[in-house]
């Protein structure tokens, strides 16, 4: 196999071209205002600056507030998803329950529901309950789709926990709950991390629920704040790209540090039923 290294070079090239939009975002975000309109365009920023990050991304109170809101919503969604999806995934994987296939089908099908179909009625329902313009409402809305995904994603991890170990734990006096907490959870740690990362990133990038359920600017997630500022930024593409890069930061960080978890989660949820 002497021809393998050229393949790698070609692969790197394809990947780079494919991810060119991401590169162009970072490239633009480090440019001076005048340089973004240079012809021919600077393929690397010739006089790089962090001004856009200092002024727009972190210096703008509206954006800082949006980032903080998104953090609260995403962390809340993650905690709620873990609390509800983890036991359910375990129950559907390792307990002898009736209707397992019915429940699984429910959680699988529910993921196909368009967010708009939930956002509209949720606005009416949450208005009644005083949940519009509240973190709680946004967290509930985000968890509505994260929990079914989490269950489908996590179940295979619990399926791979050998039943014999769980039976043995019970013989030694563990309750069902004890076996779950002391045996199944530690073994499935990669799955739990995957679930946490995926539900955090999902809520972090979510747009429709934030748009529909948070008219109050003090509660809007960064995605909605950014969409609202887009016109105000006009042609300040360097500032817009800097804010975009900050919004993308958790995703990029997760890719760098938790790559194997993310990739496993992204593909497992979709391909295994």
């Amino acid at each position: 196999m002497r021809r393998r290294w050229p393949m790698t070079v070609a692969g790197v090239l394809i990947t780079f071209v494919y991810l060119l939009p991401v590169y162009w975002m970072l490239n633009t975000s480090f440019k001076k205002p005048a340089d973004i309109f240079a012809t021919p365009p600077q393929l690397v920023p010739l006089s790089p600056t962090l001004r856009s990050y200092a002024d727009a991304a972190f210096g703008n109170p509206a954006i800082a507030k949006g980032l903080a809101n998104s953090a609260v919503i995403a962390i809340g969604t993650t905690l709620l998803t873990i609390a509800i999806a983890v036991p359910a995934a375990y129950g559907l994987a390792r307990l002898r329950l009736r209707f397992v296939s019915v429940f699984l089908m429910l959680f699988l099908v529910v993921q196909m529901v368009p967010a708009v179909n939930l956002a509209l009625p949720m606005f009416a329902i949450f208005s009644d309950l005083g949940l519009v313009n509240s973190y709680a409402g946004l967290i509930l809305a985000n968890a509505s789709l994260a929990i079914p995904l989490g269950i489908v994603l996590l179940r295979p991890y619990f399926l791979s926990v050998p039943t014999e170990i769980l039976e043995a734990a019970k013989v030694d006096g563990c309750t069902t709950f004890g076996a779950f907490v002391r045996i199944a959870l530690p073994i499935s740690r990669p799955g739990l991390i995957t679930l946490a990362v995926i539900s955090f990133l999902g809520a972090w990038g979510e747009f429709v629920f934030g748009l529909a359920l948070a008219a109050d600017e003090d509660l809007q997630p960064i995605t909605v704040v950014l969409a609202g500022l887009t016109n105000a930024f006009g042609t300040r593409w360097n500032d817009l790209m800097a804010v975009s890069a900050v919004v993308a930061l958790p995703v990029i960080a997760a890719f760098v540090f938790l790559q194997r978890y993310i990739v496993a989660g992204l593909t497992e949820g979709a391909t295994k039923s």
Partner: protein
Amino acid sequence: MAITVPQQRVATGRAAARRTTTAEYLFVVPAVLFVGFTVLYPLGYNVVQSFQDVGIAQIVNGNAKFVGLDNYADQFGRPEFWKSFGISLLYTGGTVLATFVAGLALALFFHRDFPGRNVLRALLLLAWVLPTVVSANVWRWLLDGTYGLLNTVLGTEIFWLGKPGTAMVAVMLASAWSFAPFAMVLLLAGLQGISGTLYEAARIDGAGAWAQFRRITLPLLRPVSLTTVLLCFISTFKTFDTVFLMTQGGPGGATEVLPVYAYKLAFSFYKFDVAAVATTMLLVVPVVLSVFYFRSLRKEETA
């Protein structure tokens, strides 16, 4: 918290199983209730609203009146609704086609064995996970009429998002860019399922690369391809954010897909009742497709 059952050790077989089973449902009940409240109830609520007269007053005060099929008659009689429906189908069709072709090309390339391929495959998924607000903004910048990179590369000065035809192509391109790595992953799984001996046999019989692709890869990839196309169709048909963020449905309604149309009815015009008709229709198409899909699967299995 912990349900201690000390007698469990003494209790024999079936009795123990029965006692634990009741408690064991507590693992699943919260999830079912939660999904019931946050997904099934809103979906039902939405369908009910589509038969009622609901404006902002009814949202605030409740007591909406039932009006039978009036909302449906209203929407089905409107050219805007059918235009939006057609735009949705066009946008979805174009995006799914582009997604599938790009996803298949990537899958065929990254199916080969070479150093670093797993890392590169994973990196590509970045396009899929990037928050839509981010990718939509980046695409708006790349497609900028005067200084956008695409125009520079092509040597043109096209306001891509300013004209109906090119705006549609642009939102398809941006959506396909996000979905293609996902399609790649599904198709890679399919390619891995095709036995290498088939290709060896074909080579011995003198089949070239193209013949192998047409006679072996494509037919054997059919089931996975169908699943990929269906999943891409479902996610594209419901896409709101990419279109809303790139064009807001414009110019002149040229990219106003059904989710954007429904959202505007509800939140720009406070017509929650007819918006509910539009979102209900948004469910009908994927459900019908899925039924056909499962039927064809069953037919293939029994045949």
